[in-house]
């Protein structure tokens, strides 16, 4: 379990599990508000792990961390907005 102290190893495992969940939701034909929000949330968490633990921006100057995390928030919000419109 020592290997899990390395944030990159931990992130890799979580990313694999999270991808499996999204794939599974697709297999069971999950659709609608809850499915969309869940999948978007999973994508957000995954994206954040890549930014913080793979790109190693966790300890980076605040500006660059904010720019990339801000991109993730922007993209997720736009997608959420578009899907919310489509559900109306």
């Amino acid at each position, binding site marked *: 379990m020592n290997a899990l102290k*390395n944030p990159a190893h931990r992130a*890799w495992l979580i990313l694999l599990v999270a991808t499996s969940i999204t794939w599974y939701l697709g297999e069971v034909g999950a659709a609608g508000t809850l499915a969309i929000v869940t999948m978007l949330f*999973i994508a957000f968490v995954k994206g954040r792990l890549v930014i913080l633990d793979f790109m190693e921006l966790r*300890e*980076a100057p605040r500006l*660059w961390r904010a720019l990339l995390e801000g991109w993730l928030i922007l993209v997720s919000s736009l997608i959420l907005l578009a899907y919310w419109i489509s559900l109306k």
Partner: protein
Amino acid sequence: MTTAALIPPETPQKRLPGDLAIWFFILAEMLAFAVFFASYAFARARNVEMFNLYQQTLDRNAGALNTFLLITGSWFVVRAVQAAHRNDQKAIPRNILLGFLCGGGFLAVKVFEYAAKFGAGISMSTNTFYMFYISLTFFHFMHVILGMVILTILWVQARKGVYGSHDAHGLESGAAYWHMVDLLWIILFPLVYVMR
């Protein structure tokens, strides 16, 4: 016993990995993709039934497999960077090569996927959904290729022993680009293949 306690704890200073220029480049690329992703989502909002119908024809297994490949490819490249920081000269090129192979696997899966679609007579002009599917994934495909070109350069340099704890800037810059390719696919896969 006391020596360990005498060494002052490392103060983690705030540092941007790699060169500043690569981060501007990455940000520009990400903004281009943000426009693409939003365009897809809003175009879908106007044609929900059509998008939902044709999304079903996509190969979700191939999409998920490709997510695994990019995530794992990214992970190997992080390991290469970590190896450089601890001066493990052998592990640097080895992990870069493994990351490169994951990229190659991604391209192979994608080529099979495209062959199946094009073989079925699907093209950019078939409908709006396929126009987005083909252009978005192909734009990303080109970025995977560029990422692999960068990894090749890093591999050659790493074998020369260029990177180590004294200097890993070039390696970190290339790695950051490779992670961006991964990050973009992490949004693209649920958006185009699964969310409905």
